[in-house]
């Protein structure tokens, strides 16, 4: 059975949140597939692992089709095509058509720079249900600089228009950090003008590439407070016009985020080479081995994989999580963050005020944000390239 939470008092409609049995959760309703790590952009906060998977390791068209059919057969309802840049794969239309025929609701999570009217029409024809486009800023110069790609912003604006013209619903995803937060009101306005029905304002989460760029991205405490105020004000003012989802950075929080709704509990994603991961950053935990759809049935991996079982439920928890009244609410926070900051994924997430490391982490974040280092390490297959300050991309 699944846990159901009401999302409105009078609507008779509840949002499904996933499985209830903590140690043996049912298969998720939605799956995210990173069908490739290739991407023309170089965002310094990219959630992909620092060790990107090369194209020759990617699942083939037939393998992805098999995976999609398998998921539909297991009762999965939604399939998110993500990456890297999913449109970098030539077989995307074929895969969307396959998912759509299998009865799955399909979503494309894209940077948009490789799309045009023709490709969009083909995707729509294939049955695509929804498009999410990431924006780096509302200011063209900063947007292109963050993306590490000339002309990215103008292309994104154009493609967003095409998405709406094709009659497809649009979500704008804005990743925010110290170097673009001053434009948050303009980014909200931009989303409205683009005709987006939904916007995600997501503070950078610090693992993978973002961890390498933490000092360059960490907001100040004042910026965070201001951003929260801006979002709350906009939500009220724009009620019914645009839905704004807000992801806060937890270094400054008192309690950790309920990461992925709990490890291996309501969600998994599939890496380009077919590994089943409890979250997109899980491979940053280098002590774990994840199983691949190439070697096992998906249902078996979900139930039996050692890596997925390792931090399921509450029995693995150390103090202060063990016995804490929040244990089944936040599930001890984020394993990737625990690993990145303490070297052991089995520790309490230091974002929690009750963690012995919390004060230290909070002070570090504050000091980094105030030092205001700006030069990015760009994401690429070469392990990263430093931004050239005298030769800006834009």
């Amino acid at each position: 059975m699944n846990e159901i939470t009401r999302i409105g008092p009078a609507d008779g409609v509840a949002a499904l949140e996933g499985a209830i049995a903590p140690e043996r959760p049912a298969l998720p309703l939605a799956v995210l597939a990173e069908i490739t790590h290739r991407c023309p952009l170089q965002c310094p906060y990219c959630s992909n692992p620092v060790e990107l998977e090369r194209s020759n390791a990617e699942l083939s068209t037939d393998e992805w089709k098999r995976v999609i059919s398998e998921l539909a057969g297991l009762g999965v309802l939604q399939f998110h095509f993500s990456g890297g840049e999913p449109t970098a794969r030539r077989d995307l239309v074929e895969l969307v058509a396959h998912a759509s025929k299998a009865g799955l609701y399909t979503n494309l999570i894209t940077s948009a720079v490789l799309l045009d009217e023709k490709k969009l029409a083909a995707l729509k024809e294939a049955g695509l249900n929804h498009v999410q486009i990431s924006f780096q800023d509302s200011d063209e110069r900063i947007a292109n600089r963050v993306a590490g790609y000339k002309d990215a912003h103008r292309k994104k604006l154009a493609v967003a228009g095409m998405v709406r013209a094709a009659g497809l619903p649009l979500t704008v995803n804005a990743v925010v950090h110290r170097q673009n937060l001053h434009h948050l009101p303009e980014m909200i306005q931009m989303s409205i003008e683009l005709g987006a029905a939904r916007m995600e304002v997501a503070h950078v989460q610090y693992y993978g590439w973002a961890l390498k760029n933490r000092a360059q991205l960490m907001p100040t405490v004042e910026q965070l407070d201001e951003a929260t105020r801006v979002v709350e004000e906009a939500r009220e003012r724009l009620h019914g016009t645009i839905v704004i989802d807000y992801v806060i950075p937890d270094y400054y929080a008192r309690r950790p985020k309920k990461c992925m709704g709990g490890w291996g509990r309501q969600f998994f994603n599939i890496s380009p080479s077919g590994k089943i991961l409890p979250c997109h950053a899980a491979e940053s935990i280098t002590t774990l081995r994840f199983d691949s759809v190439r070697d096992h049935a998906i249902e078996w991996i979900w139930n039996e994989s050692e890596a997925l079982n390792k931090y399921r439920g509450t029995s693995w928890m150390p103090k202060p999580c063990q016995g804490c009244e929040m244990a089944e609410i936040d599930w001890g926070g984020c394993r990737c963050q625990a690993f990145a900051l303490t070297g052991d994924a089995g520790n309490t997430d230091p974002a929690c005020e009750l963690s012995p490391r919390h004060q230290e982490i909070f002070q570090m974040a504050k000091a980094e944000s105030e030092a205001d280092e700006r030069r990015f390490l760009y994401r690429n297959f070469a392990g990263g390239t430093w931004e050239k300050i005298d030769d800006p991309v834009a």
Partner: protein
Amino acid sequence: MDGAASSTPGANVHKRVVITVNSKPALPSFVRLHHDKARDRWVILVPERVLVPDETAVEIVQMCDGVKTVRDLVDELAKKYNADRALITVDVLAMLQDLADKSFLEDKGATP
């Protein structure tokens, strides 16, 4: 509707849909009422979420064909359940407005 690309700034803006008894509600193309065979129940598929309507909500959403007005829906329900029209009207409007505010419902009767 608001699909056509336009050079006028703001012409593309998604406007709040206000549901009244004269509205002709319908699910937009990206919102799908789907019978989930694996779990034998109805779900509403929307971006990033799966919604589970209760029995009454399923019945109402199934009636939202973009032709019938909310008044028609209320009439049908009042007759079927032999219940008070005013009470049903309040419930139906609240439920539909909530869906509309999440952009999961459109009004085919609204002047564009």
